């Protein structure tokens, strides 16, 4: 069933000026509290680099997965097997298990696998996304890489409906409705995607153009929110349901595959904030259930699991003075997993205590010490300190920032309990990270916003599945890694008569290696880790005139190795992919109609992010959106 027909009667209602938000929304987002650090200072006063994908950027990525949007707008390398197939964020040489993904400040990494498949998350589900490549465990605990913080805030003043139709039988229906009643606001939103995903690609096996098979992808998401606000007190209840059913394509030399996967997640977050005297309190209660059913009839494999989480968090921030804010966060996490892979239900209980301070010693100097203690029932205590600093060389114009932290990553349930090789004796991975950056805002000589950050991470006790004494693989703490590099982000907006021109780019260099031999004759020492490109560039240029906006996006990724010993195989070739979009909107009374066209892979680049998983050749997505103000 297609959902196009649902929206045809609504054609007379018209709106949406998402395109007009290209500039303004981005700038406004700099003023919000940064979720990934919990520090209540603007981005340019944070101790570590933070990039925000605001609603405008997310709107420009409509129809794409979160992985595709992150790849377009940040230094993250997203290791994507293909549209509809698994997609994992890689920060600064780290893997998906090491990357912390938060929804409304709650970790949502899968307890068995440790990662979040970004292909399952649609950009339309989020109002903003924060990316903090160097975030510390002192803030949210487990996770030695960066953080991606997802925010979902439905608007209270409009109804919107939309329909996208694209190449390869891709149909997306989406809508959102928000109302304000007194102190209450209620919102409901959702998206429904059906994608045959039988895209064209060049097959290196058959050496001819083929259509992808066994890659059908259905993804439905629903959100409901209630908010109440009165005299400094705020309550919100957010519910997010995700259901995905998709076939899993193999690499082209394996065949079309027979496996498919069903995912479902129910997440419900209640939060209450109020201020009493000098203390700002916040309470969160989070309940979640995740379901995963992987089924491969050919191999007779079926893995069924249900995970449940119950987390609580109490935050109290004491404003001793404008120069000293002390925040205490006490958290409890309860996670249980039932699966046919384990002999019994597995449970993890964690109690955490975090203390962090914001010391604005002068108008220009901010110091950010933080310490967190986590107690896990399965491996005991971990201590995660961090210290950050931000100095405004020229206030609001030129600044330096730096942070050093000790971090850890808890072993996943599969690392601990997988019947064939799980190791209940594992310790957490640990990492000492350091970063230092210099930033310039557009206020300084009008050259735009720039940030250049150097980073380094030393990882020890890295968990890797490796052959044991009987040649069967076992999870072991035996990896020592080094990662270092530099990231440069830049953006600029110019106005020429009736034209607005905006430009943004992200360039990164990452060197990530195994730095200690794991066994005699280890030939992978000092080689670049697999699927960590040394160089990555992504850029976007948008031109807006009145109601018309056109954008061009470029994404270049240098060669990648597919094996830990680099010389075993030739590197996978670099690729450069350009996308373009064109949108037009027109206002009729309170209703705005927008038409958008996205052209992806303009030049029909034959490329693979992951070896032998071909990406689509040129394809398009046409979108009609209708929005109407409700007040």
């Amino acid at each position, binding site marked *: 069933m297609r959902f196009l027909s649902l929206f045809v009667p609504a054609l007379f209602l018209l709106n949406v000026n998402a395109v007009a938000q290209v500039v303004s929304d981005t700038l406004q987002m700099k003023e919000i509290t940064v979720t990934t650090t919990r520090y209540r200072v603007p981005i340019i006063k944070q101790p570590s680099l933070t990039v925000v994908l605001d609603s405008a950027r997310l709107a420009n990525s409509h129809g794409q997965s979160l992985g595709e949007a992150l790849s377009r707008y940040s230094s993250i390398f997203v290791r994507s097997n293909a549209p509809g197939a698994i997609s994992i964020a890689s920060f600064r040489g780290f893997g998906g298990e090491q990357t912390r993904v938060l929804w409304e400040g709650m970790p949502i990494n899968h307890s068995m696998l440790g990662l979040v498949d970004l292909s399952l998350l649609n950009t339309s589900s989020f109002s903003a996304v924060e990316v903090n490549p160097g975030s510390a465990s002192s803030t949210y605990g487990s996770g030695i890489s960066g953080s991606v913080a997802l925010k979902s805030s439905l608007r209270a003043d409009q109804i919107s409906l939309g329909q996208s139709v694209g190449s390869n039988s891709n149909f997306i229906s989406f809508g959102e409705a928000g109302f304000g009643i007194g102190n209450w606001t209620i919102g409901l939103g959702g998206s429904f995607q059906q994608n045959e995903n039988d895209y064209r690609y060049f097959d290196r096996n058959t050496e001819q153009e083929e259509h992808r098979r066994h890659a059908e992808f259905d993804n439905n998401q629903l959100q409901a929110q209630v908010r109440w606000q009165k005299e400094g007190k705020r309550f919100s209840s957010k519910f997010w349901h995700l259901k995905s059913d998709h076939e899993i394509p193999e690499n082209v030399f394996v065949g079309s595959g027979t496996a498919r996967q069903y995912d479902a997640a129910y997440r419900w977050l209640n939060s209450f904030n109020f201020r009493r005297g000098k203390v700002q309190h916040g309470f969160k209660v989070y309940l979640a259930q995740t379901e995963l059913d992987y089924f491969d009839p050919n191999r*007779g494999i079926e893995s069924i699991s249900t995970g449940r989480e119950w987390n609580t968090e109490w935050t109290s921030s004491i404003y001793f003075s404008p120069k000293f804010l002390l925040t205490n966060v006490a958290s409890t996490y309860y996670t249980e997993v039932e699966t046919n892979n384990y002999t019994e239900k597995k449970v993890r209980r964690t109690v955490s205590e975090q203390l962090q301070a914001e010391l604005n010693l002068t108008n220009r100097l901010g110091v950010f010490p933080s310490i967190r203690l986590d107690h896990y029932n399965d491996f005991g205590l971990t201590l995660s300190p961090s210290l950050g600093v931000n100095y405004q060389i020229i206030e609001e114009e030129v600044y330096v920032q730096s942070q050093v932290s000790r971090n850890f990553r808890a072993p996943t349930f599969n690392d601990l309990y997988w019947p064939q090789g799980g190791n209940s004796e594992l310790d957490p991975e640990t990492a000492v990270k350091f970063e230092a950056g210099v930033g310039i805002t557009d206020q300084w000589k009008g050259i735009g916003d720039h940030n250049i950050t150097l980073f380094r991470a030393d990882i020890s006790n890295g968990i890797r599945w490796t052959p044991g004494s*009987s*040649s069967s693989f076992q999870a072991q703490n035996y990896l020592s890694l080094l990662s270092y590099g530099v990231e440069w982000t830049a953006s600029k907006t110019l106005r020429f008569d009736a034209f607005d021109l905006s430009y943004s780019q992200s360039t990164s260099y990452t060197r990530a290696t195994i730095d200690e031999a*794991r066994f005699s004759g280890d030939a992978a020492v000092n080689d670049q880790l697999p699927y960590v490109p040394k160089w990555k560039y992504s850029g976007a240029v948008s031109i807006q005139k009145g109601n018309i906006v056109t954008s061009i996006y470029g994404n270049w990724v240098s060669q990648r190795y597919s*094996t830990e010993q680099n010389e075993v195989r030739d590197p996978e070739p670099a690729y450069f992919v350009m996308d373009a979009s064109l949108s037009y909107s027109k206002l009729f009374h309170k209703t705005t109609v927008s038409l958008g066209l996205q052209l992806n892979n303009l030049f029909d680049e034959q490329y693979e992010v992951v070896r032998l998983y071909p990406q689509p050749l040129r394809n398009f997505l046409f979108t009609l959106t209708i929005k109407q103000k409700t007040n």
Partner: protein
Amino acid sequence: MRKNLLYLFTALLFVSTACDSNNSESKVTLNGVFVLNEGNITRTNASITAYNPETKEVSQNQYENENGVPIGDVLNSVTEIGDRLYLVVNNSHKIEVVDKESLTKIATIRIANEASPRQLAKVSDSKAYVTNLYGNSVSIINLETNEVDGTIAVGANPEGIAVVGEKAYITNSGLGNGNTITVINTSTDEVSTTLTIGDNPSSIIKDDSNRLWVVCVGAYGDWNDPDDNGTPGEIYVLNGSTGETITNFEVGGHPGDLVLNDRDDIAYLMNGTVMSIDMNSFDILNSTFINRNFYSLGLSTSDDGQFLWGGDAKNFAQAGLAVQYELSGAKIDSFPTGIIPGAFYFSAE
């Protein structure tokens, strides 16, 4: 590269692989070794390493160099038939037919339904069988058309195959839970009987006396119970003409490749170490004949003597190592391979 290959394989007379060693009585000079590197499953980094024992020259990625494309996902075994090699690429569900001198691709035989082919054996001049691990079947390969002519249902998860006269013996491993051999009448392509033997039968090798040596790996036991090591490995020796069991004996552990020397007097079994077994008394002569754990084992024969070749997969993620031994157990040489050296092919003139 190509010149080197031509040099290596100009006059092939003899073939032996780790998995289906057919010991020949020919006495010739070993002039080339192919190592079949499985590669990591789903990463399609299988490869073939060529080694010249005389010049010590090593060439990696020979198939890809010759044909310009990767060979596929999990290169499992090789069988020589005439002037061709049949490379069984397990997780690509295909058999690449190549010229045995140049490795130039001649044809691709696709096995339908993602059946996961494992071992191929010639049953007549125009026909071969290939076992299908997940298809629970044997595909009938037409050697003239390079097409699949039919399928024969066998037991669960067939692995090895050996042919004696008009009988093809198929080991049904059941991925650790099987204990049967399916016997197929090769003239009618029908199952004639099913034999019950030890747990988890894997490779099956014919000696010059038409005896069949079956490696029963042993059941793996309950993965959730660290104290449950399953059942110990065994060797079954069958009469290839009748299918009757001649003897069976425990070897312990969970053994892997078995190779037989050309005098049919000593067998070498990979089982944590390399152990030697008297093929007449069926006694274990030395349980640590080579005190090293290998992933694969091969035996070559030439005028210069017989040699054992062990494939060391290291950590299964980087280049492995092939190690050459005299039959005295003395190490002679070694050279790097691709990822997971899983089988050997020897050519001699």
